[in-house]
């Protein structure tokens, strides 16, 4: 099933998240990050931060914290097993820290296909704000594979 071009401009359900210290430590541990200011509150404060910092790519996963994070893709007829992450971009406006209440508002900004529909691309842009202040903009390209549409060369 092809993703309709009419999906462009669709605003997806926003996420509201309170950033937890424990999650930031778990994230740091899972990527082997052991710099004290990223896992120890006193060291973070000494580094001039109000609390543990949200590491550069952590916001990506925060968006997946909602109860059915891939539901909108199911609604578009996408089979999650055939989804690849094509590109990811972060534009940073302000740093976020443990204790922050963040709002993540995603929007589908482009839909296109390549190789005669064997690959479909979805571009989603997410604005992250804290009390109305811009924190970051995330832009991802999701690739949906359709192996059955591959034409032998």
């Amino acid at each position, binding site marked *: 099933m092809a993703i309709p071009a009419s999906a462009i401009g669709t605003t997806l359900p926003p996420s509201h998240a309170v950033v937890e210290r424990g999650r930031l430590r778990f994230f740091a541990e*899972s990527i082997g990050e052991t710099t004290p200011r990223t896992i120890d509150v006193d060291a973070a404060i000494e580094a001039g931060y109000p609390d543990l910092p949200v590491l550069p790519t952590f916001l990506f996963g925060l968006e997946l914290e909602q109860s059915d994070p891939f539901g909108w893709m199911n609604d578009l007829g996408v089979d999650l097993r055939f989804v690849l992450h094509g590109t990811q971009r972060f534009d940073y406006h302000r740093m976020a820290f443990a204790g922050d209440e963040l709002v993540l508002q995603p929007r589908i900004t482009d839909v296109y296909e390549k190789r005669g529909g064997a690959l479909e691309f979805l571009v989603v842009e997410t604005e992250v704000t804290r009390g109305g202040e811009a924190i970051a903009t995330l832009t991802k390209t999701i690739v949906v594979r359709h192996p059955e549409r591959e034409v032998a060369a």
Partner: protein
Amino acid sequence: MIESATAEVGTELPTLVLPAISRTTLALFAGGSGDHNPIHLDLDVARSAGLDDVFAQGMLSMAYLGRLLTNWVPQERIRSFEVRFAAITPLYAVPACAGRITAVDEVDGERRAMLDLTVTLADGTVTLTGSAVVAID
């Protein structure tokens, strides 16, 4: 802290070589990151999609590149950071993160370095290519 004197076109960031990717790495990253897509965790799901095994989350490698950046400059100096996921990272692969300054410009009243970034496996496969912009003054 990076001194602007050392931030010149061609400057290379200290390479970050990671331990081999294990199933535990993937499970912990799923929990830590919040991405629970079973294609990275569940062999049955991977096989049902025609794959031989699970493979690493692309964002795990991007997070490693993030470590490369924050090892080099304080995080608040990163202005933007982007990657293209070029190849899958299989289990047991050993990723290495590298970065190199390609340009230094004055933007919005600050000096900024443009960096080229790559993640390369021990067998030479480039899994991620990307770039970042960081303030250096």
